[in-house]
């Protein structure tokens, strides 16, 4: 059978010219689309080094004549920016830290985002793993119902419950709290449950049985055998989930206004800078926000892309 396949692969059959033309037309369209995706960032990157005066005097397309690295340091550290008219613009977001008023620079927002992303990812992945493992590997009453529930939550959109969720969080005193956002994200029956269910389902139970014969308990089987087996898949899910948390604007904008994350704080700072015509500083802020996400993407590009393809979709 394999020989047949190899033979077939070696047969060269040319498709019509029109098909080659179609392929090249699509290639050109792809190039244009790719340029439309990459060019704006290159343009923004170059302009982020220009002094505002140079940018507004018409050097929009060329390289900076004067490289102004201070655009970055001012924005990153939250230093006041002095405009051409002499007025001073604050590049921080007012918030609170341990009950005291605090001005968050992008540097501070970075720290908040890193802490939030780390803790939310850890809790969500862990609880998704515990629920997915038990539902996929143990037989007990209601396990089918739990699986059906996860599918239901994924497919059926229920709009309109956000105001009541806010009220519930308000009742718990979690409407302006880091812990509140952490708590919300530590669900065990979301999309990650569904994906991990598939991972655990595909791991042979024989390993667990062998360990059980050797005297290992249920917890030991889970932590020492099953989790390490699923670890590559779990890491990829964690990376994808972490990117989602890092980029999440909605939840912090509702429940963590006094402790801005980068995604939320950037939106606030962008508004201030743009309103005062500080475009080059706006560009610098955007580039700063891109750096960590691009670093993660470069480090995990294969993992991210392969698992996004998997993404629970069968096809």
């Amino acid at each position: 059978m394999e020989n047949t396949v190899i033979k077939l692969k070696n047969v060269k059959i040319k498709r019509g010219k029109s098909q080659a033309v179609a392929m090249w037309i699509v290639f050109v369209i792809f190039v244009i689309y790719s340029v439309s995706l990459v060019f704006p960032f290159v343009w923004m990157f170059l302009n982020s080094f220009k002094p505002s005066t140079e940018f507004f005097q018409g050097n929009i397309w060329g390289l900076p004549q004067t490289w102004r690295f201070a655009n970055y340091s001012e924005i990153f550290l939250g230093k006041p920016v002095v405009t051409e008219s002499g007025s001073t613009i604050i590049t921080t977001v007012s918030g609170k830290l341990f009950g005291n008023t605090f001005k968050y620079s992008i540097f501070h927002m970075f720290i908040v985002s890193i802490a939030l992303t780390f803790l939310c990812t850890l809790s969500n992945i862990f609880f998704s793993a515990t629920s997915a493992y038990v539902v996929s590997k143990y037989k007990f009453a209601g396990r089918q119902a739990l699986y059906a529930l996860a599918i239901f939550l994924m497919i059926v959109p229920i709009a309109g419950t956000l105001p009541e969720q806010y009220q519930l969080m308000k009742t718990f005193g979690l409407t302006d709290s880091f812990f509140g956002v952490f708590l919300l994200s530590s669900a065990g029956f979301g999309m990650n449950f569904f994906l991990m269910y598939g991972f655990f389902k595909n791991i042979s139970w024989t390993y667990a049985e062998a360990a059980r014969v050797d005297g290992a308990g249920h917890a030991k089987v889970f932590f020492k055998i099953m989790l390490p087996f699923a670890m590559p898949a779990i890491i990829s899910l964690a990376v994808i989930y972490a990117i989602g948390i890092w980029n999440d604007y909605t939840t912090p904008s509702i429940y963590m206004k006094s402790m801005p994350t980068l995604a939320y704080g950037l939106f606030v700072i962008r508004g201030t800078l743009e309103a005062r015509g500080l475009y080059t500083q706006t560009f610098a802020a955007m580039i700063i926000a891109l750096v960590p996400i691009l670093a993660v993407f470069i480090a995990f590009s294969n993992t991210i892309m392969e698992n996004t393809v998997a993404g629970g979709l069968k096809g």
Partner: protein
Amino acid sequence: MTNTRIGVSGGGLVSLRKIKKRKDIFETCFIILMLAYPLLHFAVFWGVVNFNSIVRTFQRYVAIENGVVVNKWVFAGLQNFRNAWNSFSTADGKRIIINSIGYMIVSNFISLPLAIISSYFLFKKMPLAKVFRVIFFLPSIIPIVVLATVYRFQFDSQIGPISSIFRLFGASPPNWFGLYPNSQYMIYLYCIWAGLGYNVLLLSGAIGRLPEELFEYSKLEGTPLMREMFGIVIPLIWPTITTTFLLGLTSVFGVMLQPMMIKQGDPMVFTIALRIYNSVGAANEAARPEIIAYGLLLSVLALPVILLVRFIMERIYSDVEF
């Protein structure tokens, strides 16, 4: 060994039962421990929230009664649903629904077909296919604040490169984001621009998992590309297309950040989700039941549509194991 013990004495049987019982208890405890927090979380943040939401839709807030401050919730029957239903027929209500449905149309009838065609060609050993895949994926990981800002700047009437191209040819650039519905079309364009790559990646992955032999035979037969795409590829990746289509349907309720980031605060481009988001934390307690009823009513109306579309799509092509 255990069987031997059973055969030897009745005491052995008793001890085996004890061991089995102990095992069952340990297993049950383990299952309970592993599920306790996820279930509690689900019960509170989904169960209680949804229950409260449903209850609230049948209530109204009374701040003052007979001149006395009472601040209480009283039964309101179906009044909130009636109000929500009536809000659909107002000018604002209609526009919000139309704007929201527009995202579904853009997603399912423009972006998805484009993604199917693109992913097929990417799969056909196109030069730079890997580079394209990476570039197409980038918008999926970039914060929407950044992506929306970049997009807006491209069309800025003063400094935007696209407006500069217009000026280069002596034409004055239009006010891209100025008046509705132009501003809405620009947001739809953003959704295609930023969202196409993700769908391409999903679908090209699905095509990549098809058996290679199929394409070899198709090549031998000299099947034209279009026939290969519509006759072989689309039927075989239909489950992925169905899922992507269904997710596109739910965008009617989910899209919120795109209009918010691009046209912040402009009520003309409001969507269902954005209307609900803006009501969160509002001081006006009395308005809350109606907004919840509005969301729930739309969800109830949408559910049979989603299920029907799913039913129909699953019957267009049968699922094939390969």
